[in-house]
């Protein structure tokens, strides 16, 4: 088990005063069998009259707030402390055949089954395509165990798609990412989800964090992440960003392995290095911070994320 202290700071700066801002955030990490959130603290500057916390239809913890006094900057600063204790990765080769998983997904009307079926169709940012199915079928050969095939697909996307932050934006369609074989983790997650769904498999988008690289002398986290919001002009040295990956439901009649995560950006099955915040059909369901404003002129967005081990845990360190 690893305990993390997570800091996710989003700063908007506007060239003119914003008269009204309405925002929705998904920043509180979920509690799952493999993860426990001990503490969550959301600080917003300027402070809204109220923060309306809610749980959405996928079980994610969201918050909404309104800023109705003129302001020229908005800082959303989320602090959480999370233990990650992942279940051991199942044996990939003994998972059910992928055809059986697809077939079962269509028929399983249990609560878990309905939850999964909602993740099997097109969503706003992902669409099933024959070309995507064809790409995936090179790994999803006849009767192949679903997790083994997914692991290979994960590896192929990692190998054949170039990581390129200049290639896409939040709204680049999956088809273009697929055509140009470039993008960032959000794009790779969307591509893999669309491929799995094109085969009839339920797959969801997971929004979360990746453990930060060990701090160096120049990037002492205590110095770069003070408890009070820093001057928004200070860039955070060594800061990271949100991460995204894929979760696949590996269940067939009589063989339910639950949801298994795949991270095509890093070619791995997430273990205790990944902190899960929220999941949905695609990014649009779980955007960490979004908003609609009146006024404000042009705006500038700055995001800083830090994920540090919180100290000695009971796993032997």
């Amino acid at each position, binding site marked *: 088990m690893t305990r993390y202290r997570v800091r996710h700071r*989003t700063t*908007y700066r506007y060239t003119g005063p914003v*008269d*009204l*801002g*309405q*925002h*929705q955030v998904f920043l509180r990490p979920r509690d799952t069998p493999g993860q426990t959130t001990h503490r969550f603290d959301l600080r917003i500057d300027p402070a809204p009259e109220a923060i*309306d916390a809610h749980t*959405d*239809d*996928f079980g994610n913890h969201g918050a*909404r707030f*309104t800023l*109705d006094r003129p302001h020229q900057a908005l800082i959303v600063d989320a602090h959480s402390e999370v233990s990650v204790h992942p279940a051991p990765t199942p044996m990939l080769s003994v998972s059910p055949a992928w055809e059986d998983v697809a077939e079962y997904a*269509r028929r399983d*009307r*249990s*609560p878990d089954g*309905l939850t999964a*079926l*909602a993740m*099997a*169709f*097109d969503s*706003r940012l992902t669409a*099933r*395509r*024959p070309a995507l199915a064809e790409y995936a079928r090179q790994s999803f050969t006849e009767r192949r165990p679903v997790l083994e095939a997914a692991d290979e697909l994960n590896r192929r996307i990692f190998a054949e798609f170039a990581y390129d*932050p200049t290639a896409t*934006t*939040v709204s680049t369609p999956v088809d273009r990412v697929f055509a140009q074989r470039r993008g*960032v*983790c*959000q794009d790779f*997650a969307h591509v893999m989800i669309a491929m799995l769904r094109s085969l009839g498999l339920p797959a969801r988008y997971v929004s979360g964090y*990746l453990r930060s690289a060990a701090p160096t002398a120049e990037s002492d986290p205590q110095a770069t992440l003070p408890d009070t919001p820093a001057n928004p002009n200070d860039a*955070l040295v060594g800061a*990271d*960003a*949100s*991460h995204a990956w894929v979760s696949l439901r590996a269940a067939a009649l009589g063989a339910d392995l639950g949801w298994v995560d795949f991270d095509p*950006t890093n070619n791995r099955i997430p273990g205790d290095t990944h902190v899960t915040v929220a999941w949905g059909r695609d*990014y*649009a369901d779980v*955007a*960490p*911070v*979004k*908003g*609609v*404003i*009146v006024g*404000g*002129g*042009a*705006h*500038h*967005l700055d*995001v800083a994320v830090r994920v540090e081990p919180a100290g000695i845990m009971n796993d032997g360190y």
Partner: protein
Amino acid sequence: MTPPAPLPSARVALFPADAADPAEPWGYASSGAAYDEFVDPLGQLRPGWSETVRELERLGPDGLGRRWARGLAELEENGVTYNVYGDPRGMHRPWALDPLPLVLGADEWAGIEAGAKQRARLLDAILDDLYGPRDLLASGDLPASLAFAHPGYLRPCCGWTPAGGRRLLLTAMDLARSPDGRWWVLADRTQAPSGAGYCLENRLVVSRRLPDAFRAARIERLARFFDTLLRSVRAVCPRGEAARIVLLTPGPYNETYFEHAYMARYLGVTLAEGADLTVRHGGVYLKTLGGLEPVDAVLRRLDDDYCDPLELRGESAIGVPGLVRAARSGRVVLANALGAGVVESPAWSPFLPGLCRRVLGQELRLPSIATWWCGQPDAFAHVRDHLTDLVIKPAMPGRADAQPIFGDQLSQDQRDELLTRIAEHPEAYLAQESVDLSTAPCWNGRSLDRRHLILRIFVAAAPDGGYTVLPGGLTRVSSSPESRVTSMQRGGGSKDTWVRSEGPVAPFSLLRSADGDQAVARGADLPSRVADNLYWLGRYVDRAEAVVRLLRAIAARLSDDAPGWGQSPEALPDLMSALHAVAPGPEKGENDADDPWTLAEAVLQQRVFDPGQAGSLAGITGNAYGLASRVRDRISTDTWRIISQLESTFEHARQGGDTADAVALLDRVVLTLAAFAGLNHESMTRNQGWRFLDLGRRIERVLGLSRVLRAVLALGEARAAAGLEAVLEVADSTMTYRDRYQAAAAASGVLDLLVFDESNPRSIAFNLVQIEAHLTALPGSDRPGARAEDHRLSIGMLAAVRLADPSVLSRADGPRGERKSLDVFLDGLIAQAPALSDALTRRFLSHTQSPRTLGVEQALDTPDDLADAAPDDVAHDADGGAP
């Protein structure tokens, strides 16, 4: 549904004497294949039509033709339009209406009515389950994959119940009658059904043309239905009777915008666009001149997805950010509830009979036509095998082609290609039995034609928890006897629908419940956007008047007729520069002649006959028309007619004409504009809306007059009598001047009359006094210690005029004989008038700017900057003059 039984073709003749003559003008034949609403298979008139036929016989074809010409004129004058997407000339297409109603008997209607109520109840129960426990998905009564694949199944609306607990307050169903005479449901309209307003307008126009038949046949009235709808909405609002209701429209570019404005006015509710509403402290508020006013219920004509850019479709620019949250908190009632659109899909219909038994314990009384949803493998297999007998339609918006595809019209290759496409996304498609729609006679101007029809009926929630059905509906007919598509988008027409009453018809008017208090309250809740549009409407109308008067003065100096008093052609260059100052036109080209006559001819042609030119009358009146169409619910029908007449005058003038034509046309337009001013003065309540319209006129007039006086008197070449007389003529003050001064025009007299005289409505001083009075009467202007900027500017301008020395201003004190002091004085007014306009906009109208979506963080491993969509706030032409 049973296969169509072949029916003998039947022919009916309304004039029995001529029945043998096949060329007889009324001759109407049923097709034999489809059910005919008018005649039975033996050629006998169906029951219920005798009163209508009697009146038609009495009128004869010529009489009906004459009468209906008036009906069509009324439709056009009332501006009943339907916008056709993607057709530049299709905006404001006149509404197509047939004089012959569709008549339905009381017994038959009772069946439809009971079925419609039951179906509304069933659909509401389905929505309750889909957005609640989802038991029907778990039990398999409804296919879960249809819900989850449907983009209209809104996850942010799951897990909570809207205020009042009812999701369908107004729903519509499209019905078709099969050859065996039974009615079937083709489609449900559950999110924001259109057509009820067109029903009202159709009824108004048709019942006036066939009054005897309408009375004799005892036709059910429509008004009570709308009263019930309003009472049901109020019943679920926390503030009950005091509830403020708005009708939310996507705006004037929507295909049925006419109806939105019409319904708002008919129901006595405020017409609002998304930007007129804002969500604060969890509630919805209307932005009015007096501040934010709470809204209790929203009758929405916006599709589900577009209602909230925060929680639903992020790119929606026409929604209200935070609306989902407000609805969830129960502070606002939405009719219909968000997410209701998911049950519009006919793909649910195969499951309804079983569900009706299970949920309501009843047989489904108004079934859908046979439907196969391709998302089910068995159903898809059936579609594959029977494609030629079926119509393929989208099961949900977005993926499949929106237009129905008739299997029998495809080649083998096309069928294979279609099946491949379906196989890629089977859940997005459904197939329906191809139905022979029933037919009814339509008037083609000379005789009766046969057309296929679909009937849209409307169901409203009743305050007692039940439902009520509009006794009537919108009958839509195909564009030709062959066409099976009855789409207003594709050239079809409409009919009034008459439901016969068994007993005497009780009169009922909505005006009784919408009592005087409500009308009085309307002035106070004027949305800022409406004030903004009225203000600019006033400005454009006055600008049109200034240009028309200048052009008329120019034209008068060009004609061969003996010029009138003082119409000396010497003033032409001055008039041309005045025209350019008031409404800049194209720059003088290199090849243009220097001779003022030729030049003036060319300018006259451009401004009157060439709508493409800058400063053309078509452009200015077109702007006025556009603004007026956005405030249809706030201006009288007569005012609308004037604006629409103005616009069409210049639209039609594009064919061109000579100077004499131009003069005649301009003379006519001056009268039309005078009528606008008269209505504005005599028929508009002195509310805030009127003030903004009049402020627009007054400010524009100050600006226009200052510009004309500066061009001619201060800088003009003909500073002698010719220019002065021309200015008097343009300012419609010639008679007053002659009456008062009994002399040839002199600068001091002209300035006295047009600048300083506070009793002359055409003077700058008079208009400034009016402006000041309006500003004093606007909300928030009653604190003398803290006058707003616009108010201070207007006081300053009026003071400058009152303090000016006429003898100094009339002096020719420049080196070349121009009036320098006058130039400086007028220049000051010309600079301050737009500043006043801007200040007014800032104080009252600036929160009309639209919300926009922020850039969001992209999930990636390095920090990123995704700044900046350009602001999409739209403004009317920035002030300072040039439109």
